[in-house]
């Protein structure tokens, strides 16, 4: 580690004798050059558009005049906007809770069976996560089809009525959440399974000797050991689900009568399809608070782990 130790000294020496050749030989310069494409990519195509959307949100529809917070004022007066806020929160929170619960229990079931068969089950159960969501949502769309629904065929056979999965506002909300849970739960399962495997066996043995029940072992051993991974997965998923586009777009496209729009699909409808770019930018900005909040928590977690190491 001689090199790293002298790295700081090298910089000051180099600064005193500015020779271009030396500069390019220096470790920090080489490192910077190696990271340069990454820096350019992030600043040009992520950071710049993110700030540009802040600017866009303050313009009028034809993007010639600065209107300040006029777009926000306009949005706050629209009933559809509040409906979208409500649906986005409902969609994200419900979906994440169910994904986490299903993922947690399925991970336990996989963990409980002999390790010989675990690979096979794990492989099967992760399939929803592997299929591109736009394609698998098409399959759900066809399963929910108003006249040929395969679910309704079963329901009629067993004597239940048909369900308007995508026609009725409440059922449509249920359907988009169901599809999102279907798509995301396997990811939770895989993460929790990895976490379960990292819990030392001795803890369970000690708990079993102390006479802990299944439930007590879960509550006092498994959960505390998995706390970190549970919180980080939930935060991740909250961000991704809150910003979800594919599933809602393909399944309902926001309908019936805008009842299932989330921020992303409504922003797309306003900004790209209706051509009101500033208003669309404005709507998409409402995804920022949840993003910032999650980022704070995740950063705190990273720093904490960094200090422990």
């Amino acid at each position, binding site marked *: 580690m001689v090199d790293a130790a002298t790295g700081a000294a090298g910089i000051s020496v180099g600064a005193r004798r500015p020779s271009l050749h030396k500069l390019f030989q220096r470790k920090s310069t080489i490192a910077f050059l190696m990271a340069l494409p990454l820096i350019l990519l992030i600043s040009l195509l992520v950071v710049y558009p993110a700030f540009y959307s802040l600017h866009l949100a303050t313009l009028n529809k034809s993007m010639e005049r600065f209107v300040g917070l006029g777009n926000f004022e306009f949005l706050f007066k629209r009933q559809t906007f509040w409906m979208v806020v409500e649906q986005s929160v409902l969609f994200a929170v419900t979906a994440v809770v169910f994904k986490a619960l299903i993922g947690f229990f399925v991970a336990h079931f996989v963990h409980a*069976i002999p390790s010989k068969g675990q690979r096979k089950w794990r492989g099967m159960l992760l399939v929803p996560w592997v299929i591109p969501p736009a394609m698998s949502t098409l399959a759900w769309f066809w399963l929910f089809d108003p006249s040929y629904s395969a679910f309704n065929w079963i329901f009629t056979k067993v004597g239940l009525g048909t369900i308007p999965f995508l026609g009725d506002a409440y059922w449509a909300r249920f359907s988009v959440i169901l599809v999102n849970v279907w798509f995301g739960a396997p990811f939770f399962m895989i993460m929790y399974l990895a976490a379960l495997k990292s819990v030392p066996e001795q803890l369970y*043995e000690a708990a079993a000797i102390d006479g802990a029940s299944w439930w007590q072992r879960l509550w006092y051993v498994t959960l505390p050991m998995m706390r970190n991974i549970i919180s980080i997965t939930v935060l991740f998923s909250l961000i*991704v689900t809150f910003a*979800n586009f594919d599933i809602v777009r393909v399944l309902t496209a926001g309908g019936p009568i805008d009842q299932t729009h989330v921020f992303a699909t409504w922003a797309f409808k306003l900004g790209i399809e209706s051509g009101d770019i500033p208003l669309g930018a404005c709507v998409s900005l409402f995804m920022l608070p949840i993003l910032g909040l999650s980022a704070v928590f995740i950063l705190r977690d*990273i720093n904490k782990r960094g200090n422990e190491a």
Partner: protein
Amino acid sequence: MASIAATAGGPTRPVRYGSISRNRRRALIWSYVFLVIFAVFFLLPPVYMLITSLKTSQEISAATNPWWVFNPTLQNYIELLSSNQYLTFFRNSALISIIVVTVTMLISVPAAFALARMKFWGSATLATGVFLTYLIPETLLFIPLFKTFAYVYEYTGIQLINNWWVLIVIYPTLTVPFCTWIMIGYFASIPKELDEAALIDGASYIQTLTKIFIPVALPGIIAATIFAFTVSWAQFLYPLAFTTSTDQLVLPVGIITTLIKGDVYNWGQVMTGALLGAAPPLIIYAFLMDYYIAGLTAGATKG
């Protein structure tokens, strides 16, 4: 869990042994019951895709048992695979994904090496920044990007909108941050003694990267490659917003905008198209499952 209970119960009296093994059996049976239920739930849509793809339009509209194929046919597959339009979508998707994967690796592997091993001014901040960029969803960026592309056309005359190759420019924003992040994790786990030895032997930094870090971290690189490929293959929002003519579309958008025509739903073909479109990631997953899962879990468990 149950197996642990049994091993813990092992050394105690044989009287208790029986009840624990009975408990264990019961827990095992319940686990299998629930696993079967969830497997049915998770595999239902892909299986139904397959069922529908083997049917003729007549059978679909006849409203017979939708869960069974009475006259299996490969007609849908033949039609799609001989349709130029579908093959164009497939080609666009494949080209874009392969180029994006290459570009991603060329950007993120050196950057991750620099961030993990060679410190420079602001490198720690940059590493955190990379992670934060991964959290910024594409749904926040597509509107400003759309407007930026319009400006680029105004000033330079380069038409970016409605060209499939523009996706090659944007997709790395989705893949590079995560790939860099997990590569930083993999590189950081390589013992320092290895690269010190190489440096003492007179290897340059580039040689250390290509001769030591890349071979040692190969599993990580494979995982990152798979991630980059599946993300570019599945991306739906950017192509939907930026491409419109049928010869510029990629698979997910192409299937949805061209195969679903108004109210005349040709569901056999739609499902075939979707299934074939889902095939490349599924095949990669089937063969490289362990790398795929390693990449998934690396994001949150490393770093």
